[in-house]
């Protein structure tokens, strides 16, 4: 089983986000990038599949600042190959361009299964997984919280609202969008990642020229107006607690 996992970095939403001077894009200079949390689940799911049924896990990611650490961390978890796709990603690219850049590389790897996070917080032109599936003419199913291999097919658990799950069968090769791995992404100690850095290598491949067509033009980005903002309670923990108890009484629950 040849398993490819696509990984991208996204803005860390814990940090303050600002719009750049053009008024139509995020200010990349101040942006802290972290792994898309759903991609972290895709890595975990891919490694679980390898542990259960054997195979090779290859991580493919665009070359942006911080990607080496993410790739080596995946290797420390059990990924066999690391590929970073070189291209001018520094200014930020949309998913149509990224999918096209990665599709060429992924096609060359002749995957049985491609896993990626079901979505990312900076998606504005669809998600990477289904765009790639369209380019590779493979079937796509997303919002998955379970994946099993069964011969030339994969059995997946697709989530619907209210906790309902659909069991589906998908013919391989396929692209799957992971919502949650069957277990939380495993933890690896920094010391193990350091050790892996000495023994693993990151293969570099160049991307075809970036083609963002299919994504929308953005004329303005802004922070949402906070018209209906909460009444903020201030003071020490003790003072705030007293106010909250008053509110609980007012609402009739105390």
């Amino acid at each position, binding site marked *: 089983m040849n398993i490819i996992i696509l990984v991208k970095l996204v803005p860390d939403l814990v940090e303050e986000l600002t719009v750049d001077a053009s008024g139509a894009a995020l200010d990349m200079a101040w942006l802290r990038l972290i792994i898309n949390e759903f991609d972290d689940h895709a890595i975990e799911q891919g490694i679980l599949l390898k542990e259960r049924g054997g195979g090779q896990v290859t991580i493919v990611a665009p070359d942006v600042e911080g990607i080496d650490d993410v790739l080596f961390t995946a290797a420390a978890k059990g990924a066999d190959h690391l590929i970073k796709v070189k291209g001018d990603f520094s200014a930020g690219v949309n998913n149509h361009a990224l999918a096209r850049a990665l599709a060429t590389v992924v096609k060359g790897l002749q995957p049985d299964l491609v896993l990626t996070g079901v979505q990312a*917080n900076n998606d504005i032109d669809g998600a990477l997984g289904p*765009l790639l599936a369209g380019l590779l003419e493979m079937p796509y199913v997303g919002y998955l919280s379970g994946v099993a291999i069964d011969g030339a097919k994969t059995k997946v658990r697709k989530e619907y609202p209210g906790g309902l799950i659909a069991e589906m069968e998908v013919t391989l090769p396929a692209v799957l*969008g992971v919502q949650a791995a069957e277990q939380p992404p495993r933890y690896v100690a920094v010391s193990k990642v350091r050790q892996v850095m000495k023994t693993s290598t990151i293969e570099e491949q160049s991307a075809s020229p970036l083609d963002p067509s299919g994504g929308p033009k953005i004329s303005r980005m802004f922070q949402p107006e906070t018209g209906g903002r909460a009444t*903020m309670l201030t003071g020490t923990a003790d003072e705030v607690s007293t106010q909250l108890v008053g509110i609980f009484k007012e*609402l009739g629950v105390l």
Partner: protein
Amino acid sequence: MTQDIYVVIEHLRGQVAEISYVMLAAAQELAKGQNGKVVAVLLGKNAQGLAGNLAADRLISFDHPGLADFTSDAYQKVLAGLIQKDQPRAVFFGSTSIGTDLASVLSIRLGLPLVSSCRLFTPEGKYVSQICGGKIMAEGELPGPTSLVTMVPGGYKPEQGQSNQSPAVTQGEVPSLDSLRVSLKGYIEPAAGDVDIAKEPILISVGRGIQNKDNISLAEDLASALGGVVTGSRPVIDQGWLASSRLVGKSGKQVKPKIYFTLGISGAPEHAEAIMGSNAIIAVNTDPAAPIFNIAKYGVEMDLFDLVEVLTEKVKAAKAS
């Protein structure tokens, strides 16, 4: 080519999903300035009964046993043919487990632009989309001549997309649904036995800010003092810190409690859409820019670990007195 706005109606096991009505409301707004009509597109088997209250000018129904339940491959095939033939001004999908399996693939297959996570439209053809967990909005012109769109809730009330007049129905021709690569094997019902969080009046809901499983007991203590139940947002469930029956959000439950008290929840759109029916949201978060403060009635910008134990004691004291 037509200036009509097509809305792909989402339904699951005999129920129209709320997002379908939100999309119809948005399509009505957009259609006003585009000289087009709103057309609902319904794929299913004997599903026409679902069309009764859709606020659409007409409905195209694709009726086939292979469309009885949603599968991406079959739906893509039908919709690709329809969109290619009619070339409408826009086609709306939900930003959901169903819609996101369709829109991106069709964007590539048909070479059509896609704008995702849209919240609002103007008659002039402007979209407003939300990214970065609702912290940033992006605005632009909906590309022409045909665009695909995925929609999130929040910009329109579902009632705006409902009507007491049924739309006129035409039958669409279903293409061959042979050699499909995705098939449904069955459904797994949500686990029963735990409390039904949709019916509980007081929910203490924890997010990533709770940091680890051991800290859940802080929320449990507060919940038991108030007579409530502990729930969580997606990251907490995915980490295995709470059972999936306690998940509030897009893939979990929608809740409407008297009090929804959040600890370390940022209020990402997937979570926010599930709690909008709450009577009063009270939010505790260290980040003053957390979107949860935009929908909460009361907010506390404080480390939850400084507050919760003190609050629990005060609640206990108030109950005792």
